[in-house]
């Protein structure tokens, strides 16, 4: 790592300082930013690994259900059969439901809740935080009061109220989770916007007549991205776990199987039948891992400082 850094630095210094011949030609051909980012992403082994993992999970939850048609609510075998049992490769839960069927059929609900709740949290958090940090003054004051209000609410209780008011469904659960978890994104976005706003290149942008919209979206946001992407990937993981918590309390659609539901309903059997909780737990872990590897990779791919030429 250290050696890499050094040679990269030395390289760029040489690039910048000496009139070398090869640079003259290829330096002028500027690649399209998206293409370049894709190329950089493809070079990152961990990120590509994460992408392959996520594609695998998507195939498992979106395609495999058409082939593995066991109903996850059917009682197929003796309760609490361990993995490897005939007809139930991942074992069964306390009612004798097939855990493999739960994994295959429950993934899509979990992913849908995780992704849409995280998206909602990021959209609300980013809007609130960026406006507060950029404009400061009374805008900041008002928005931060609102954020504080949501932050001190007991999140689980609040989510329960939302879900209880409407009928529990994938959409209401996602909405409830999104609404209670945007504050962390908002605080982070605000502090990043505050920090970057005071840098000289923002003054430079203003002095060349950039509009506020341009400064917020095209100047500050790209520079604020790295911690926000990390936060967003955390939000996906957080949302999936939150969904598990709500399911445990019986606040999810009882007719929809999800990984969280599996963990929630089998929590009491952890000591007697580890697989009932551990197997869906592993899949949640793999999902969160893949998302965070991809997030890291995207960050690095769009950060010019980490690009070796």
């Amino acid at each position, binding site marked *: 790592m250290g050696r890499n850094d050094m040679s990269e630095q030395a390289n760029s210094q040489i690039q910048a300082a000496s009139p070398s011949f090869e640079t003259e030609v290829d*330096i002028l051909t500027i690649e399209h930013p998206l293409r370049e980012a894709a190329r950089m992403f493809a070079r990152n082994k961990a990120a590509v690994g994460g992408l392959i993992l996520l594609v695998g999970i998507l195939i498992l939850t979106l395609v495999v259900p058409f082939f593995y048609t066991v109903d996850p609510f059917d009682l197929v075998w003796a309760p609490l059969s361990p993995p490897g049992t005939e007809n139930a490769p991942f074992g069964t839960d306390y009612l004798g439901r097939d855990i493999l069927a739960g994994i295959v059929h429950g993934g899509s609900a979990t992913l849908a809740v995780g992704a849409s709740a995280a998206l909602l949290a990021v959209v609300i958090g980013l809007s609130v935080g960026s406006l507060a940090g950029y404009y400061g003054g009374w805008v900041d004051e008002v928005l931060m009061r609102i954020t504080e209000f949501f932050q001190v609410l007991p999140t689980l209780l609040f989510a329960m109220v939302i879900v209880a008011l409407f009928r529990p469904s994938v959409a209401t659960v996602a909405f409830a989770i999104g609404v209670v978890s945007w504050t962390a994104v908002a605080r982070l976005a605000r502090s990043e916007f505050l920090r970057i706003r005071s840098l000289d290149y923002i003054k430079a942008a203003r*002095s060349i*007549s950039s509009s506020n919209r341009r400064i917020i979206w095209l100047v500050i946001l790209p520079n604020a991205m790295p911690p926000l992407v990390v936060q967003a990937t955390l939000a996906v993981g957080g949302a999936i776990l939150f969904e598990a918590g709500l399911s445990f309390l019986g606040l999810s659609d009882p007719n929809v199987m999800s990984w969280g539901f599996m963990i929630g309903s089998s929590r009491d059997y952890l000591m007697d039948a580890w697989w009932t909780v551990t197997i869906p737990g592993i899949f949640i872990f793999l999902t969160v891992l893949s998302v965070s590897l991809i997030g890291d990779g995207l960050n690095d791919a769009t950060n010019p*400082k980490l690009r070796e030429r």
Partner: protein
Amino acid sequence: MTEETLLSIENLKVHFPLKTRGFSAPKSFVHAVDGIDLKIAKGKTFGIVGESGSGKTTTALAVMRLVPITSGAITLGDQRLDRLEGEELRRARRHMQIIFQDPYSSLNPRVRAGAIVREPMDLMDVGEKSEREDLVAELFRQVGLRPEQQALFPHQFSGGQRQRIGVARALASQPDLVVCDEPVSALDVAIQAQIINLLRKLQAELGLTYLFISHDLGVVQYICDDIAVMYLGKIVEMGDRISLFKEPLHPYTWALLSAVPSADPALRDRADRIRLQGDPPSPIDPPPGCGFASRCPFSQALCTMEAPQLRTIRTGHSVACHFVSDDGVPPQRKI
């Protein structure tokens, strides 16, 4: 011999409200710039010197309309900059540009050097679209970079080269006034001279007018035609280079000059006697009277009661001190 004035500042004040919790109106203000007047002739370089916190950067930012102006008038050519808003302000911006002190934080790390220099042209409609590529390449050459380096990102350049990109960006809109806020103080000494000479060369080629801010009197003496010395948000002495360096009148100016190796030895002896001690007072709601009184060896009762006004002592040389006589005899220590 009348020179055409490009920039004139009249009684400019910039007061920052101190943060208050909640919505209550602020009670205290930082008097960063507290009533300054100056005029810059077209094609000249006007220097502002003063120690840290004296309000130099705030003055620069006020001229650039990058901080809210509390009161006063700023006129560029025949346009009242302080009154412009919205679209009018955006259009006026191409006539004034700024070079920042820190070549690291003044360039967006995610934008290539070429795009950094190109952006002002696109945003402020400089030239024809088809010409801009050539204009950018030409600017790169003018500031001593190679046009092929356009594709590089800021971190791939050295500090001095980054500052050259900053200069090119400032020139991209073909401005009349270029505000240089300590453009070399973050650079190695060897590089400083290169950038200063580049600025001088560009001024000669393009007829630029500079508002040049520095705390380094050596640099200021080399590049500036007229100089104002700032202390605690006010101009305490102002004059042309020769008069100011030869016969400084304000005790604070002597103290500053004592730090310059090239200054007249006789002057340095006098300056030695009033070596600056302690820190300047806080600019938050400053008391009435001369801002320098707390550190001035000649201070008397009058100094803490009444603020001295800037008086012209001879053509092109004025000072704000109660005890400089009208014929230019500086204050003497009472025995």
